């Protein structure tokens, strides 16, 4: 016996409408909270004019020595500067800088991990966004307007890309299990977030191929996807959108701000 009104507001309807909006709201608010918290905890030396914690006021020359341009110029050895003189030719200078960039990046030390990691993270965002079915739900289901849509890619291609995501996810899992340095850092939470990321893609693959209980898997897929979106700001998954902020504003030899920013006292 079904409850009165159950057909009018099924779990499917809830998942494609209000629950999706709730998940997105939790994601946006949670992410904004993390950015504010991060901004409060870090501060610019240049803005404050002193080294936090030390209580020492820096003069203009000391502040200049911490600037990005000055540090980069200091980093260049005499040999580098000689090589970058205009008489070396533009092509060899570009190749020199390219080699230097590669040598200092993760691509040189861990080419497989870097390539897989980049592919995984880009696909993780692009495949759901450019899927025709998601666009229909987003623009028609939420009443945002007929005829509007993000660019979409064909579903058979998306099906294969889903398998690529799952294969790279398996690579990450195996890395966690078999590489001692990664295993030493791995917690139950790391395995849980890996499963949480994989779950919507596994269910999407099964739903696309209409395996088993199509309706049940579809609703499960929507709920798992919404759980994933809402969990991002509050779990290790946050490293993905948070990367821009952590890389830009945390001090470090290789950060974009090049040690020009320090933690607040």
């Amino acid at each position, binding site marked *: 016996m079904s409850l009165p009104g159950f057909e009018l507001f099924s779990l499917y309807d809830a998942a494609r409408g209000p629950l999706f909006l709730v998940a997105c709201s939790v994601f946006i608010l949670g992410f904004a909270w993390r950015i504010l918290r991060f901004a409060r*905890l870090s501060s610019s030396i240049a803005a404050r004019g002193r080294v936090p914690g030390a209580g020492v006021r820096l003069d203009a020359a000391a502040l200049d020595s911490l600037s990005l341009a000055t540090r980069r110029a200091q980093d260049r050895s005499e040999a580098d500067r000689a090589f970058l003189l205009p008489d070396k030719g533009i092509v060899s200078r570009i190749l020199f800088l390219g080699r230097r960039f590669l040598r200092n990046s993760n691509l040189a030390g861990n080419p497989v991990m870097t390539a897989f990691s980049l592919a995984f993270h880009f696909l993780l965002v692009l495949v759901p966004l450019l899927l025709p079915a998601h666009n229909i739900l987003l623009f028609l289901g939420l009443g945002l307007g007929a005829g509007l849509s993000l660019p979409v890619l064909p579903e058979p291609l998306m099906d294969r890309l889903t398998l690529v995501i799952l294969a790279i996810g398996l690579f990450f899992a195996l890395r966690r299990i078999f590489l001692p340095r990664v295993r*030493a850092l791995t917690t139950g939470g790391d395995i849980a977030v890996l499963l949480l990321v994989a779950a919507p893609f596994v269910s999407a693959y099964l739903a696309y191929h209409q395996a088993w209980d199509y309706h049940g898997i579809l609703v499960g897929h929507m709920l798992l996807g919404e759980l994933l979106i809402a969990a991002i700001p509050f779990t290790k998954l*946050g*490293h993905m959108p948070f990367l821009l902020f952590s890389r830009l*504003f*945390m001090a470090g030899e290789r950060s974009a701000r090049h040690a020009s920013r320090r933690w607040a006292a």
Partner: protein
Amino acid sequence: MKTTATKAAPVNAEVLDLVRRRRKLVKLSLGACAHCALCAESCFKYRNSGQDPTYTPSYKAINTIGKIVKRRGRLSPGEYEKVRELAFDKCVLCMRCRCPVGVDLPYLISLARSACREVGIERGYLEGKNA
């Protein structure tokens, strides 16, 4: 300082103060850490130790200041001894560890050293056990 005791020591007021002031920062930093271990190969101590995973910079940060903050300074002398080994013997604070997400690992390890000093633990220069 060599000690084998395992009973939890009374909490040092200075350590408690350090934990209170840096708690959010440490939690935020270690929360951003994706446990990817890509920092390992930027550590020359890791590379020259036969790739011992305990030399991985993020392992050192998590198991020193991460542990101190999580337990609010309530570590036994034996546990502080392990922190000393990681923060003083297994790291020289050369500042060269590279984190893909930008966690300031040397700063975290330097905080662990500060906490150790507050409880009277320093590098054991004369004990011949520096790694």
